[in-house]
């Protein structure tokens, strides 16, 4: 149990772990750590998988020309916030 994760962040963390098939406990993901490269060590192919999983689960299309892309994929927290804002 990671007390730093909110309930929704935990849900997204589980989605990341299952969609990327990570050998990792979802609760252990630091919500503020960068997802890309350093931090969780994901690459651009993982990011694509994440975008697909999000569109499948929440019906949110993430697009390449989205000006907020740099911040959306910054961390688990930023990603969760962006999904929460868009699915509402």
């Amino acid at each position: 149990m990671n007390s730093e994760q909110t309930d929704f962040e935990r849900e997204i963390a589980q989605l990341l772990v299952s969609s990327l098939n990570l050998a990792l406990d979802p609760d252990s993901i630091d919500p503020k750590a960068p997802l890309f490269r350093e931090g969780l060590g994901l690459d651009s192919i993982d990011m694509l998988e994440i975008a697909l999983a999000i569109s499948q689960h929440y019906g949110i299309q993430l697009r390449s020309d989205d000006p907020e892309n740099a911040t959306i994929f910054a961390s688990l927290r930023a990603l969760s916030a962006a999904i929460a804002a868009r699915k509402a």
Partner: protein
Amino acid sequence: MARAWFERRERGSRWGLRVARVLALRFGRRAGRAVLWPITAYFFCFHPEGRAGLRRYYEALEGRRPTLGTLFAHYLTFARTVLDRAYLLARHRDAPRYEIRGFEAVGRYLDEGQGVIVLGAHLGSFEAARAAAFLRPQLKVQVIMHAGVSPKLNETLMALNPDAQESVAPLGGPTSLLAIKEFLAQGGLVGLMGDRALADEATYAADFLGREAHFPSGPLRLAAALRAPVFFFSALYRGPVEGVCRYELVFEPLCGPAPGTGARGEWMRQLGERYVRTLQAYCRLAPDNWFNFYDFWQAQSGDRPRRRPARDGDDAAGVCGGSPMDRPGTPKDLGTRGKS
């Protein structure tokens, strides 16, 4: 072994390429051909690692040491394909001719608006993939590669036709691949290379021409993430006919689109297996089209760093379906040509 092949490719002198370009385009094919010999001879003589790498390739392929003549002819074939790229990109009247095999299956996907991935190798002239753009008037082709490889050659090609580079997509930031996904959704054709691994790239081992070789896993993961059907692709140089160079563009179905969840690991394993088997079959068919001028088996072996977190490998089996291929990795008879 770091970036051995990367550095080797840089050997080509800008000067030599420029001379070849000017001669070839101004004075036509015969002049271009004439200048090929000294350039080829130069590389052949002062490129011992390349010769040694090729020797290993022929030993694996034919089980015996190749003659110097075989090796020189191999270098000459490579030089010809470089020259042909110049003609092709400049849309010159001496541009090579193409014969196309296996595109029907690709076309069926495209008819439905489904984009297709073609997985190539440094076998033949991958740049001739652009010729695939001529297969259909509206077909858009995009080639994904490690940006910055062999800038000298690219510069020369750029000078020939500035439009050419537009369709080469570098792999960069976290969302760079979303654009590729969208490109496929619009029915585009995406080209990837599946044979060379950079120093820090994760690889998988496969039997290649009887010896264990290591191939990059990245292209397989990317193909899986893009959820598009995958075809093997090569533009094989098949020698001149009546003075005009002839290429055979071959497309072989490898796998249907990757499954959405869980079983992707097994899908990638099957894709890798079919890719290497198909590559091997085409090496046997057109041996002198192999343009990895280094010891392929040695250069990509050894312990590789794991940058990415560990994955669970216990995926379900048998998911690489959707391939209409009867005998995977067995190219059909591609007609006759001198030595093969």
